[in-house]
């Protein structure tokens, strides 16, 4: 079983996000960068499937030089090799261009299964994985919480609004992860040492057959006109009162008579 995991480096969810002077990008210097949490789940699932089925796990990430750290983290968790697409021409690509580049990289790799996160917690685009599947002409199953393999087919339990469904597809296929699928392992110290010797290929987009004039910030279909902070709420109003019953009465009164919500 040849498994490819798509991983993205994103700001730690604790990070303070500030708007840069240009008004359309964020300040990146003080951010701590980590693997997208959903992609950690994807790496973990790949390792478990590989260990049950044999085969190998390749991690693919597109991003600037520091994105190599995220690939190393996946290798330290136990992935076998990495592909880092590092090309200034690709920087600022929108989800479709990103997916086109990733799909081009995948066409050069053997794969039976592709695992991705269902969203990256930076721009929250929820798009790259589906677009990769489309460009490769393979089925996708999103928000998976359990997988089973049998006879060259994959069976995924996926979350839907109001329940779960079990979806089956022949390989090759792509699925995206949801919390509940597994608990990602931490990279162990021996794992980190071993990761240093694992192969990591670095590619430019031209090497993948992608014309730089079709991707990157200048060719975005989604153009950022402005970034803003969310609208501020008015300062909290604390409900006063002695006993719980008094506070409750006051709270409900405000919700009923002033806010007119209940």
């Amino acid at each position, binding site marked *: 079983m040849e498994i490819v995991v798509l991983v993205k480096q994103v700001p730690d969810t604790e990070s303070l996000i500030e708007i840069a002077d240009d008004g359309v990008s964020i300040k990146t210097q003080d951010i701590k960068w980590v693997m997208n949490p959903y992609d950690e789940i994807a790496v973990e699932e790949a390792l478990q499937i590989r260990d049950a089925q044999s085969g190998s796990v390749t991690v693919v990430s597109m991003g600037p030089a520091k994105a190599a750290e995220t690939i190393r983290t996946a290798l330290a968790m136990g992935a076998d090799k990495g592909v880092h697409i590092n090309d200034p021409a690709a920087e600022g690509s929108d989800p479709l261009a990103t997916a086109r580049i990733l799909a081009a990289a995948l066409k050069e790799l053997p794969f039976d299964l592709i695992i991705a996160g269902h969203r990256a917690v930076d721009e929250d685009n929820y798009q790259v994985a589906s677009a990769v599947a489309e460009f490769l002409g393979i089925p996708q199953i999103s928000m998976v919480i359990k997988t089973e393999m049998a006879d060259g087919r994959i069976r995924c339990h996926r979350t839907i609004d109001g329940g779960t469904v079990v979806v089956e597809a022949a390989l090759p296929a792509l699925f995206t992860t949801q919390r509940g699928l597994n608990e990602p392992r931490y990279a162990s110290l021996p794992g980190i040492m071993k990761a240093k010797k694992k192969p990591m290929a670095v590619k430019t987009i031209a090497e993948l057959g992608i014309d730089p004039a079709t991707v990157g910030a200048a060719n975005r279909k*989604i*153009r950022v006109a402005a970034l803003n902070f969310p609208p501020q709420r008015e300062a909290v109003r604390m409900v006063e009162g002695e006993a719980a019953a008094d506070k409750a009465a006051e709270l409900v009164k405000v919700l009923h008579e002033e806010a007119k919500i209940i």
Partner: protein
Amino acid sequence: MAQGVFVVTEQRDGAFRKVSFEAVSEARRIADSLGTDVTAVVLGSGVEDLAGELEKYGPDKILVADDAALADYTTDAYSNVLADLVASVDPAVILMGATIQGKDLSARLAARLDAGLAMDCTAVKVSDGKLTCTRPMFGGKIFADVQIEGELQIVVIRPNVMEISENAKQCVVEKPAVQVGEVKTAIVDKNIDTGDKIELTEADIVVSGGRGTGGDFAVIEQLAAALGGAVGASRSVVDEGWRPHSDQVGQTGKVVSPVLYVACGISGAIQHLAGMSTSKYIVAINKDPEAPIFSKADLGVVGDLFDVVPAVTEEVKKIRG
């Protein structure tokens, strides 16, 4: 020339998701600003009678794609059928709801049609014939105003944010021939929540419990029931196994935008706020006056949730009878 607004509605087992009405209403507003028309599409099996329910929100045309192969949602069948319909209608804008299904379908469709897509938008403005969509990013720490380049713009709207408005027009219903095409996935089992449980992302009122509940959700459930709302949870609660993953609100859970969000025994971690900060009105009940949740709330009560929440339930019952 591409023109018109094309709305993809969502139904399950013969009932529309609420966001479908929000999407048709929003499509009508956008189409009126652009001086164009609205085509709404209903996909499913045996759904012809549903079309009528959409008319009051103002579409000019409703297309019913009815086929046994569309009974359950699969990405392949739905995107194949929609791609054909979009090709024949040639709209300038596609609108749909950012439900689990809507996100999956819209992303695949955007790639198929090579169209720009703005996901999970909380507002759409039209000026000089161009759309500007507002979308939260970085877990709601930033709101981006984005514009979509190209002939076709796909806008996927966050459920429970946009207003439902009635604005009936002269409306025709058509039942085009449907080509399901190649389907590489099969639904082999379904496990649908039974009963009258309100879907978290659609609920007008959400009452959530955190670690402060110690796992005892009875008082949370009673308040939710009294308010006619849904129950949510913080990740700590889900990690403890006290509630299912499907109840988790936050950056790695569901994003909810109810009219009223009541956070009980939740500290207000940034990752939790990511899932509820677009709620219209936030109430926090916490025994720690310094809890960060208070700085994000409209109304706060300091107290033990096991005293305060049941008392609130009693007061609500007095009003609601």
